[in-house]
């Protein structure tokens, strides 16, 4: 009997969706807009994440050592730094490498190159390039470097300069922007997702409001709650699935069209390749949201009319 009941509920739901085509069409469109907003929100958060990661990547601090510093002492400091929990990556640039990079950078600047030749020896110290796990942690890394922890075995400091102190204001500002952007992104996500879900919920409520007389008749002929509610939930789920498919389909040409624009604008983020790469994940979010909103709206909306 349970299977027969389930089959009848499914069949009635499909028929109701098909026969009330105008209402179904309107509801699917509204639901599609909702799912579009959810898709856009997930794209924006991906764009934000990529951009912020790129920004984070651009922040680092360079520790320049005095020219007489022993390479072994520098490498000791490197290993100590790598053992710090805040530190993500430490790259060692030897004096020779620093000189080669300097020459390359100034290859078109003849006076500087000849001045360098006149000096006869390499004036550049070795460098440790440090990337922290989070921009806010550079202060503690710089503090560590400024302390006695990094003295050579002879007890003298071999650090010439740390550029954190020159760039402190800029680093702090970027760290602040990243934190605020993260928070704003989350707030906007919640805001738009809530608004769009509410719109979809109200549309389905309206479609059930139209059917309120039918529901009361069903009650009076002795139909059980499941038997009345079931087909409406099925219709809600069909709205969700149809709108989900429509959303996923329309996203293809639109992200394709926007692909190169986003790549130029947001440091290497191509929305189309992101969509293709994360298709399964996005499809799951969209379909699950559609089905959830459709079914939940139907259950909530119909409850009011089941009191007869």
């Amino acid at each position: 009997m349970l299977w027969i009941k389930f089959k009848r509920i499914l069949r009635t739901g499909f028929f109701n969706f098909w026969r009330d085509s105008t209402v179904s069409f309107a509801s699917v469109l509204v639901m599609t807009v909702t799912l579009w907003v959810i898709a856009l929100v997930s794209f924006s958060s991906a764009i934000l994440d990529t951009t912020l990661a790129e920004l984070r990547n651009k922040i680092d601090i360079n520790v320049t050592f005095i020219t007489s510093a022993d390479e072994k002492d520098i490498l000791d400091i490197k290993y100590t730094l790598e053992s710090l929990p805040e530190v993500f990556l430490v790259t060692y640039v030897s004096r020779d490498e620093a000189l080669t990079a300097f020459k390359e950078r100034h290859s078109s600047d003849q006076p500087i190159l000849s001045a360098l030749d006149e000096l006869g020896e390499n004036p550049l110290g070795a460098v440790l390039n440090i990337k922290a796990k989070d921009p806010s942690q550079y202060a503690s890394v710089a503090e560590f470097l400024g302390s006695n922890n990094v003295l050579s075995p002879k007890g003298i400091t071999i650090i010439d300069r740390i550029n954190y102190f020159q760039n402190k204001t800029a680093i702090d500002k970027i760290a602040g922007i990243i934190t605020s952007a993260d928070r704003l992104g989350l707030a906007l996500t919640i805001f738009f997702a809530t608004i769009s879900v509410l719109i979809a919920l109200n549309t389905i409520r309206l479609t059930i409001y139209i059917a309120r007389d039918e529901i009361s008749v069903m009650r009076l002929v002795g139909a059980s709650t499941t038997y009345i509610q079931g087909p409406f939930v099925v219709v809600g789920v069909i709205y969700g699935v149809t709108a989900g498919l429509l959303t996923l389909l329309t996203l293809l040409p639109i992200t394709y069209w926007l692909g190169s624009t986003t790549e130029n604008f947001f440091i290497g983020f191509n929305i189309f390749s992101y969509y293709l790469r994360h298709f399964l994940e996005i499809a799951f979010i969209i379909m699950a949201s559609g089905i959830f909103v459709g079914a939940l709206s139907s259950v909530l909306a119909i409850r009011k009319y089941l009191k007869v």
Partner: protein
Amino acid sequence: MIFFDRVSKIYPDSSVALEEVTLSIEPKEFISIVGPSGAGKTTLLKLFLAEEAPTDGSVYYESVDVHSLGKKEINEFRRKVGMVFQDFRLLPNKTVYENIAFTMEAAGRTDEEIESDVPHVLELVDLSPKIWNFPRELSGGEKQRVAIARALVNEPSIIIADEPTGNLDPANTYDVVQILKKINDLGTTVILTTHNKGIIDSLNRRVVAMERGRIVRDDKSGKYFK
């Protein structure tokens, strides 16, 4: 079979719909309830179907207070009662067949029973050719006959017809009354509410007259008195 025991219904705005109504209806009876609009006829039926709760008093069906029933039991009870309304209340997105089948499905009948009983009951109300039509494709009289078929199909022990001829022309009114009489002759209790004096006079059955929420007359072989 049905007993209203000193039933009162007062709405939140203090309007009195029923005042201490006591009424007993026997099995296989054909009873007409008459009275002007607002007399309390429809409220009486709503209280019987547990659509609304009485402010005071009790409504019994076969010695059971219908307002003491749980949700599931109310559904089972309602399946024993066939309802016919003035505005037909057919399900607009279902065909004639599906409208009737829905009532049987709600009662848990099998697909085989539905396939054999629906055409049969449509034959009884002379609507077989319209079996696959939607309600919007039917005339008022045809819609009411579908509603009667829907009320009949689960072989209920009671048929309640709330002003069933209110929207019909005289010819369709006559047809509907004849069908109701036939149903009653086959042993089903019929409760009819109406304004139509002609119907009451032609039926020559029990008439209960109501006014301002009270029963003012109960006549065993009634005529319509103003």
